[in-house]
């Protein structure tokens, strides 16, 4: 009996996690980073929400377009970095 799924199934699973929870997480970071915009709070929050679905969709497409699953996660992390900085500013600034 094999306890771990096959390599290709595991890679697909990792990609699906990157796309689903990973993509939603990136979209959330974007909506928080928008709060750092020099705008009234409600306007910034609204822009964050309006754009978040585009970020989510782009993340999913990017994850599956990546050459391999490692690059998919690396790309996600690379995009998350500036957004996380912005989100920190937006919620603590």
């Amino acid at each position, binding site marked *: 009996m094999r306890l771990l799924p096959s390599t290709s199934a595991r890679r697909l699973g990792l990609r699906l996690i990157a796309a689903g929870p990973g993509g939603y997480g990136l979209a959330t970071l974007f909506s928080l980073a928008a*709060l750092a915009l020099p705008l*009234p709070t*409600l*306007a910034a*929050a609204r822009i964050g929400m*309006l754009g978040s*679905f585009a970020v989510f969709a782009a993340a*999913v497409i990017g994850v599956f377009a990546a*050459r*391999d699953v490692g690059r998919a996660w690396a790309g996600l992390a690379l995009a998350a970095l500036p957004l996380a900085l912005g989100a920190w500013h937006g919620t603590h600034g």
Partner: protein
Amino acid sequence: MARTAEPRRGPGLRRAMGGVHAWSGLIAAWLVFAIFLTGTVSFFKDTLSLWMQPELPRATSPLEAPELVARWVALLEARAPEAASWTISLPSEREPVSTALWRGAEGIERLAVDPEDMSPVTARATRGGDFFYRFHFQLHYLPVIAARWLVGAAAMLMLIALISGVILHKKILRDFFTFRGGKGPRSWLDAHNAFSVLGLPFHLMITYTGLVTLMTLYMPWGLEAAFPEPETRRQAVSELHDFPRVGRAAGVAAPLVEVAGLVADAERDWGRGGVARVRIEHAGDAAARVILWRAPGGRLNDQGPRRVFDGVTGRRQDTGEAPGADALTHGVMVGLHAGRFADWSLRWLYAGLGLAGCGMIATGLVLWTAKRRLKPRPPGGLAWVERLNVAILAGLPVAMAAYLWANRLLPVGLPGRADWEVHAVFLVWLAMLVHASLRPVARAWREQLWLGSLLLALVPPLNALTTEHGPLASLLDGDGQRLGVDLSCWALAALLAAIARRLPASRLATHRRARKKAIAS
């Protein structure tokens, strides 16, 4: 999909997108088809409600808006003096009666009157077009929030299927002008491309803006971080949706301003019939407030404009400033989705594109199965996908037609009548699922499509037999609204019949032919 170190540019990228497109499409397609079809019908929800309540008068010469509002105020002061607010809807072409809503001791109360003489109007209990409208974003029989999340997940998958579908296509325009009939999967692919390219901007717009209408549910984190206090957050959400909350009463009596005068002023600026709704809060209290909403006619921004007045002095409380860019973008997105701004010709364009969306999803699902059916060893669950395709793509129109039948056949005095109309939809839909599981797939397709066509074709005669608003009567009466529903039933019956006629008599026939051709070439 997870092959390693494969160059993703060129064919590799398209192959990856092919996988994303096929699977995100398949998972979401059944639900999105139901959302698209009921959503398309919702562009006509008020008209459908009118058709489903044949008792409603047509009110061709309603009272002038200020006079009507003055009479409403007198009526409501006597009827519901304690209510925190009254919301009065003024009649329009699509909603010829005038209604008022308020929160009474037993929940929301509603009164409809004939705007010609303020006589109360009673009609059969029905959810009318509102049922389809609500179903398209929160389904039925399910907890509302859970259902909205389901719809949101399906919409997100649809968005991904659309984007990956675009990337998948090298020559999107050339594909649009290509049609290879009678060739199994090839033909389905061509049909799928035609429907998709035809409506692509619409499909992208309607899917994205659909997510935006419920964005405070799907993506609340920015709001939660910016407004940690629940009370200020509620205030922010109300401002975000441009829907002012009813404030608190002062507990000090003060006479209500003459609301009719405020309406008359607004009509001078917005034109006759320019005021859609009037909300009066805490009438007779010092904290009274009056809000006038402008009718959406011709304006893309669905949020605002409105006027807010002090309900005692009549002084304007809002600044009347134009909304900011963010609010404008948001309002236009919601406006584009709901299409309330659209006049009749534009509304029909919306309906046509919505149907093209249904065609895109339906042909995509059939293509998914047709491709896999051609394989030497078709995958195991394929038969069930095919059967579910029948039950949903052909079964839902049958169930929706059954809604109109139930509306005309259920006794007017039946307790829980409005609910039974809806139960009829789901009982018939369930019957279609059972039918699709028992019959050979190709026959099930044809039988359900013909049944849907027959039910729809017989709606106008049924209407003529059971009400005084049959198609001929509506024609002579100049009642374009009700006539339009009857004629649309005939048009949709013809559409379903045309699809049924074009389907092959048996699946094997086409696939044998297609396989032979594939081998020969």
